[in-house]
């Protein structure tokens, strides 16, 4: 192995450089073995040197991979309500580690054996510079995106040179699947030197992947990173370490071994822009390993790699046995004979394809052809359960955390809500204290844009029930760190955030939704401020449509308040004001409307009406009814609205003269189109009234029958719309009634005298269902 100690001027010191593939189980095992043989007293690992201070945590039993080193720029919270700051252009970077990552194995080895661990990449402080200071587009240390050149994927070159389409499969064959045998590292270093020389001659010599030159920023960054690696190595030698191991991506090996004067590296690194950066460990997931971040290489099959690393021997047999177990758990019958044949097929396929050992491709084919008998669905099951194998790591309690994260962890423990990466459903019964607290926590997190829980539809099962889908994603830690600018506890931060949102809200509807969310989250402290803003806004907003839109959400919120025991006094005041304003504003707003506007108002009217019915406040209801009653007699009201209002008032029992009104509306003097609109409005909430009220039915029937031919054609579409919305059974019932109409008024049913003895039990049951005991 290369001994560069002489070049560094420290007598007797030995340096070994292990070129690895990030997240490759084979190289992880090889690195572990090589380190055990070499017995270094210092291990340098590709990664941000800021992590040196917290690397000891990796030895903590509470640290379970997959985890990631997170570098973030503290301070400066994002603007409230600014959703544009997406995940990718956040100023944060990750270096993920799985159990099978060579870097992780190197860290664990060094900590177990008491060797020093240092990270040797360019400091995160230099990588996380704000975009304005960066002199190229390479802001987050994230490569150039789509236009990847050879330099960005050196393994692709070697793989293609070996005749493989896919670099991962090539690496699998050459390194990952070898167990025992000589160390692969000298050969890798050699191959990389060769490759780098060829790439240096590029682009005069067009490569097999003519993907265009790499972005210039990437070249500069690579030079800086490698200079930093060399400098760290020099420092380690100067500090007197005698056996130094360097673990880094294979591509960098020749650069680290190159004899570059220290002065030149210092010059390269001098004066780089720096950002203030904090560093910590965060839990990571297998799914996220597949993405490019920090260590560029993503893996598509982390579950398979974890298996390769963990299985002591016979990986194919073990994998297929596990797959059979997964299928059996889903009640698919898979026998041992199946597994045997699947192993045989996988091995035959590997031989046919000239591979030393069956890989994931062969195993998947065998699973499909034998275990799943050609069906694709179970194969997909195996893929999600095993090939990706969603898994969430964890970090020990004494990991550096912002107070907000700590507060959340504390709450999670107290409420017994452990984060996990698979989306599972949670049913909450808000009548129980713990469930109520859980619900509040999830709602508060949502205010901080940490959508750990997403509410699922569970309407119609009572307001005291909530259904959530819980799925923890690694980026939530970043959200929490950013949100920590709002406060140090979840409650405090979300209250502050809600206040800011209320101040920035532009419409009444936005404000009401903030208010609703505050109530859901049980943020009593934030509510007064939000309510004040709401009251101010409602007073200034002249558009009655906005006011009507705001009403249902607020009434709903009032009802939540009852269930959740939140003080709703201020909200009540706002609702009171709102109802009065709506009642005053409605008459002018309903004048001179065309068809579309009338239809819009009809919807609002219905929603406001049902909101007020929910509110069940006698004074408000009376005011509302008076308003409607005054409206209905107004001239020039749109037919649709007049019909609807008549119906609402009829249902409310304060309109005695419904048949007379209908007769007037549909009489020959009225224009047929308006009459039809009236009928539509009148019937827009179901046609049962026609089944039960012969007089009205007779009026409608008579009107339709009396229409002149051309007018009938004109109103037919409108009628069709009105009747088309009824349920089929309702339509049939109406049809039946119409048939019997010809028999005259005597055919009217329902005049049988009620038999109180027979009705008694039924009445009692109904009363019990309604919650009023017959006796009380």
């Amino acid at each position, binding site marked *: 192995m290369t001994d560069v100690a002489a070049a560094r001027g420290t007598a007797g010191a030995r340096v070994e450089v292990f070129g690895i593939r990030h997240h490759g189980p084979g190289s992880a095992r090889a690195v572990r073995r090589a380190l055990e043989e070499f017995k270094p007293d210092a291990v340098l690992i590709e990664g941000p040197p800021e992590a040196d201070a917290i690397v000891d945590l990796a030895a903590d039993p509470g640290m379970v991979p997959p985890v990631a080193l997170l570098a973030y720029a503290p301070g400066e919270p994002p603007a409230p309500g600014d959703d544009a700051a997406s995940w990718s252009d956040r100023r944060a970077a990750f270096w993920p580690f799985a159990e099978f990552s060579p870097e992780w194995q190197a860290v664990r080895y060094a900590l177990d054996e008491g060797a020093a661990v240092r990270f040797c990449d360019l400091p995160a402080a230099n990588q996380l510079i704000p975009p304005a200071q960066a002199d190229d587009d390479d802001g987050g240390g994230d490569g150039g995106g789509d236009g990847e050149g050879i330099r960005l994927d050196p393994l692709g070159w070697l793989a293609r040179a070996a005749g493989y389409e896919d670099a991962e499969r090539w690496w699998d064959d050459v390194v990952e699947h070898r167990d025992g045998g000589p160390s692969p590292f000298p050969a890798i270093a050699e191959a990389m030197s060769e490759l780098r020389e060829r790439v240096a001659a590029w682009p005069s010599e067009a490569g097999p992947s003519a993907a265009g030159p790499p972005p210039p920023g990437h070249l500069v960054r690579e030079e800086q990173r490698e200079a930093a690696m060399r400098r760290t190595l020099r420092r380690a030698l100067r500090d007197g370490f005698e056996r130094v191991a360097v673990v880094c991506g294979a591509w960098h090996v020749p650069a680290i071994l190159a004899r570059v004067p220290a002065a030149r590296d210092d010059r390269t690194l001098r004066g780089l822009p720096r950002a203030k950066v904090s560093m910590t460990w965060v839990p990571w997931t297998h799914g996220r390993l597949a993405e490019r971040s920090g260590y560029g290489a993503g893996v598509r099959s982390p579950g398979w790699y974890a298996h390769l690393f963990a299985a002591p021997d016979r990986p194919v047999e073990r994998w297929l046995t596990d797959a059979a177990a997964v299928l059996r758990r889903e009640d698919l019958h898979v026998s041992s004979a199946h597994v045997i*044949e699947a192993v045989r097929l996988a091995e035959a396929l590997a031989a046919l394809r000239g591979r030393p050992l069956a890989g994931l491709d062969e195993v998947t084919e065998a699973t499909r*052809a034998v275990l799943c008998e050609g069906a694709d669905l179970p194969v997909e099951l195996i893929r999600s359960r095993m090939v990706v194998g969603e898994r969430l790591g964890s970090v020990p309690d004494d990991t550096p955390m912002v107070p907000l994260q700590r507060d959340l962890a504390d709450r999670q423990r107290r409420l017994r809500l452990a984060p996990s990466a698979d989306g599972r459903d949670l049913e909450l019964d808000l009548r129980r204290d713990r469930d109520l607290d859980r619900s509040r926590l999830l709602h508060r997190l949502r205010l901080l844009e940490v959508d750990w829980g997403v509410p699922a539809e569970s309407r119609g099962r009572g307001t005291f029930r909530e259904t959530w889908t819980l799925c923890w994603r690694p980026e939530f830690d970043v959200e929490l760190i950013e949100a920590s600018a709002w406060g140090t506890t979840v409650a405090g931060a979300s209250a502050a955030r809600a206040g800011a949102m209320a101040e920035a809200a532009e419409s009444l509807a936005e404000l009401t939704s903030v208010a609703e969310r505050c109530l859901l989250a049980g943020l009593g402290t934030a509510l007064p401020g939000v309510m004040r803003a709401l009251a101010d806004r409602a007073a200034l907003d002249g558009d009655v449509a906005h006011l009507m839109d705001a009403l249902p959400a607020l009434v709903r919120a009032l009802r939540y308040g009852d269930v959740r025991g939140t003080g709703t006094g201020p909200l009540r005041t706002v609702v009171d004001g709102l109802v009065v304003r709506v009642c005053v504003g409605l008459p002018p707003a309903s004048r001179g409307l065309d068809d579309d506007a009338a239809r819009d108002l009809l919807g609002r009217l219905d929603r406001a009406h049902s909101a007020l019915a929910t509110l069940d406040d006698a004074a408000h209801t009376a005011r509302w009814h008076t308003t409607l009653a005054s409206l209905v007699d107004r001239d020039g009201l749109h037919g649709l609205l007049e019909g609807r209002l008549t119906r609402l008032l009829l249902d409310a029992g304060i309109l005695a003269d419904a048949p007379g009104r209908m007769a007037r509306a549909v009489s020959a003097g009225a224009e047929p189109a308006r009459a039809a609109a009236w009928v539509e409005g009148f019937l827009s909430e179901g046609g049962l009234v026609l089944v039960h009220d012969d007089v009205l039915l007779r009026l409608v029937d008579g009107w339709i029958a009396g229409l002149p031919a051309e007018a009938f054609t004109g109103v037919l579409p409108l009628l069709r719309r009105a009747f088309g919305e009824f349920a089929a059974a309702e339509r049939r019932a109406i049809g039946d009634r119409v048939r019997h109409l010809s028999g005259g008024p005597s055919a009217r049913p329902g005049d049988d005298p009620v038999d109180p003895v027979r009705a008694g039990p039924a009445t009692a049951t109904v009363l019990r269902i309604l919650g009023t005991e017959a006796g009380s």
Partner: protein
Amino acid sequence: MTVPDNGTALDNGTALDNGAVPDNGTAPETAGDEVLRPHAEQQYAAELALLAEHDDRPRPPGWRLSPWAVTTYLLGGELPDGTEVSPKYIGPRRLVEVAVATLATDRALLLLGVPGTAKTWMSEHLAAAISGDSTLLVQGTAGTPEEAVRYGWNYARLLAEGPSERALVESPLMRAMRRGMVARVEELTRMPGDVQDSLITLLSEKTLPVPELNAEVQARRGFTVIATANDRDRGVNELSSALRRRFNTVVLPLPESEADEVEIVARRVAQLGRALELPEAPAGLEEIRRVVTVFRELRAGLTGDGRTKLKSPSGTLSTAEAISVVTSGLALAAHFGDGVLRAPDVAGGIVGAVLQDPASDRVVWQEYLETVVRDRPEWADFYRACREVS
């Protein structure tokens, strides 16, 4: 295929193994001239011979070619001397590899797929490449008797001599076992359940007892079975799980891309044209593409550009049907037209293929014609032709 006067003793299975197509009554060299459709091993005899010549990889016992050469034979490729091997199956490479690897581990192979996805075609070529003989075939029908799978008797001899080896009539499967070859079972799910059951122990024990003679036939190495079955017909005689377990299953898909399908149709049409000795008529690639487009769009219920939803007809509209539409169109063009394949020549065939159910499919077809075909200016001739036929 039964040979009444079968003079072969039970133990000398090799006695018959003296030609590419034994028991055929026709010498192989004349077959190409007289039979309607020569077997794969006859039609591609030259390719198979060349492959065998260049094949230096290990061959499983009883195989004529190594698994690698079989794969090359099916998927096409170039031999070291530069000879081009024509592709027989155009589709995912992995399917062929799984099929070959299955047979190499002496497992039985079940090819599943909707009608017209080249199941039979693939099984014939696999058998031809592996055993050099694709004729050991059981054609499954609702009336297939157990004798077709096991063995029968020549009753005249049975009455005259009593049970004897000479009175025994072998089934294709028995012959394949005895000679260590690939037997084929077509339309497995159409066979009655009890006949299917007789395959179960045959496939696991690889032996066929003949209790009447107190003897048995043990399969020689190289024996295996390729069965084909139809996805849509699964309900007919559902395979028992015991039988299912003895097969490795490969599902053959419909062609993935339009380019693939055009290639398949064009290639097969050219081959069929030669075999049927149609007068030479250039199979206009444009016309083939149009047929394939119509089939694909109707099958998917969506136009090629993904803009318009369509109803799908009741038929499967497989690639095999597209091939037959173009072939019959070619015959029309050659005999009655001007020798060039044109829209009117294929229109009749397409309409016939689409209208399987006269009531519902007619609506589907009319809609397609009026909403899609009509709006394509370059398809005006096709539209007119279709209007005339339908």
